[in-house]
């Protein structure tokens, strides 16, 4: 824990009294004296807010490439927006097959602010999907998953899977046509698992057919089960980030002098907390130059988050969230289409006919998911530059290319573009 303590040089004057240690009392203007000042000092003394703030804000982060490192905090902000807007949707939404649709139709027709909030929840989820993907991509390119940050990557991949689960269970809730048929198709997929598949489908649906029990289960998954797992994983992910420090892209670890060994030894001696990263290759354990997270990095983070949140707010207002006709199991004309982020998986379903559906869905997707999770244990070389890691770069490009290709085929098939 000694690495966590505040360096007096970086926090201003050496502390004389407890209330001088941090910024909290510094936020109180000099003119304010008496009980208010004493109150803030008392609160800080008892609760240690300044200490906490220092731990969070005065971490050293790599100097170069700061804009690329904004995506993690942007992901966190977008998830918080989803929590916020989702809780507000509970002011109205009823998880019942007879009332879910009418509760959302009411928002659409009669409650403009509620409709806006639902639009924010939808566009927030779309944006989150892009940003979490971009965050994973930048982490992959800079090889930030290498020792000792393997678990940062693994928790991150599981976070991505939970976000996908949130998206699909959320899509099941409005109980309009899109939602009903999404529920039907998605809950049917597990029955292709040999042996236990039918049982899993029955448990997910709460019966053989999609009905009220299915909606109740989707609702419970969406508002309790998955969010709790999500919060736990976020806690683990951020704990690991603080433990190992941020790993920047390769430009932060170049040596400039004729004596690289001496330069790296110098970096290790002068490292600011949380560096040097324990267990890391010495070349990559301290960036050549760092800045404090606050305000340099936090400003960039806030700019990106603000742009994204404004985009979500505007799109939520002008485009909103669609609502099909009410769920109708007896339709003959409805063409179920997956949410865009499930198009690649849906297209896979077309490719694997007859007895191969289970193989396509579980073996192909399962192997791809396992390879992504296991990336830090596959790519163990010390090399960080993407061009010098062709053994993982080429398979990754193939995977990304396949996903995009499948999505394009799906768009072509469903929308005849």
């Amino acid at each position, binding site marked *: 824990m000694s690495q966590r303590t505040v360096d007096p040089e970086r926090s201003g004057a050496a502390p004389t009294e407890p209330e001088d240690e941090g910024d909290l009392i510094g936020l109180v203007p000099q003119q304010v004296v008496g009980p208010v000042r004493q109150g803030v000092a008392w609160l800080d003394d008892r609760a240690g807010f300044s200490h906490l703030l220092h731990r969070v804000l005065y971490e050293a982060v790599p100097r170069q490439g700061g804009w690329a490192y904004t995506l993690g905090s942007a992901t966190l902000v977008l998830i918080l927006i989803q929590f916020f807007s989702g809780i507000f949707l509970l002011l109205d939404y009823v998880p019942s*097959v*007879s009332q879910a649709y009418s509760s959302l139709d009411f928002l659409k027709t009669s409650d403009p602010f509620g409709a806006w909030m639902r639009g924010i929840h939808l566009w927030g989820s779309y944006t989150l999907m892009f940003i979490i993907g971009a965050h994973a991509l930048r982490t992959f390119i800079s090889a930030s998953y290498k020792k000792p940050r393997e678990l940062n990557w693994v928790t991150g991949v599981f976070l991505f899977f939970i976000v996908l689960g949130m998206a699909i269970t959320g899509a099941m809730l409005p109980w309009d046509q899109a939602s009903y*048929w999404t529920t*039907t*198709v998605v809950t*049917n*997929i597990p029955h292709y698992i040999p042996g236990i598949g*039918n*049982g899993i489908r*029955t*448990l997910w*649906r*709460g*019966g*053989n*057919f999609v*009905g*009220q*029990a299915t909606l109740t289960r989707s609702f419970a998954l969406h508002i309790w089960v998955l969010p709790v797992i999500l919060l736990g994983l976020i806690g683990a992910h951020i704990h690991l980030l603080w433990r190992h420090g941020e790993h920047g892209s390769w430009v932060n670890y170049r040596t400039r002098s004729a004596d690289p060994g001496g330069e790296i030894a110098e970096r290790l001696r002068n490292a600011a907390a949380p560096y040097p990263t324990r267990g890391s290759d010495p070349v990559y354990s301290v960036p050549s130059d760092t800045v404090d997270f606050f305000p340099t990095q936090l400003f960039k983070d806030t700019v990106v988050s603000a742009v994204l949140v404004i985009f979500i707010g505007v799109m939520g207002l002008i485009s909103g969230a669609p609502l099909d006709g009410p769920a*109708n*199991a*007896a*339709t*003959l*004309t*409805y*063409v*179920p289409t997956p949410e865009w982020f499930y198009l690649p998986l*849906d297209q896979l*379903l*077309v490719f*694997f*006919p*007859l*007895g191969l*559906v289970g193989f396509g869905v579980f073996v192909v997707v399962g192997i791809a998911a396992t390879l992504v999770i296991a990336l830090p244990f596959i790519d163990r070389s010390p090399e960080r530059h993407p061009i010098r890691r062709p053994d993982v770069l080429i398979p990754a490009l193939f995977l990304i290319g396949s996903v995009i290709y499948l999505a394009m085929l799906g768009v072509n098939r469903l929308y005849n573009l």
Partner: protein
Amino acid sequence: MSERRITRRQFMVRGTGLLGGLITAMVSVPAIGFLLSPLWATTPLLWADVQGGPIDDIPEDKPTARIASIQTETNPPQPPVSRVVYVVKHQGQLYAFSNICTHMQCDVHWDASLDLFECPCHGGLYSITGRNVGGPPPQPLPQWVHRTQVRGGRTYLQVANRLREEI
């Protein structure tokens, strides 16, 4: 007094572990049982009339979509849901197909120009007798459990709240 076999500390360490296990077991048994309860829940056979009157006038080789209000799920009790019953007469046989595709359970419809049942999701095709003849469906189109009743010289169709074949 007999010789001590374990120390106070060992007793407390083991006791904490044991009681923690007990707490876990206490909440796990009902949780797992509740979670798995749909597996052994039984749904009684409930019959529903196929709407739209008697089926005598439905022509041979012309699949006709009718609606039945079927209580598919009873655990917990749920209101009946409108479902499609495709009434097909072919070579003297009567079929009462559901329109549930066996691939991903999308809504199949009869396409008169193809002379086939077609699924809009992934292009599954079925013949007039429900045989899966194209696309990804792994099994034939399932029929509802059904029976006919003759009342006043007219034939009425009833379907039950389950499919004849498991899909």
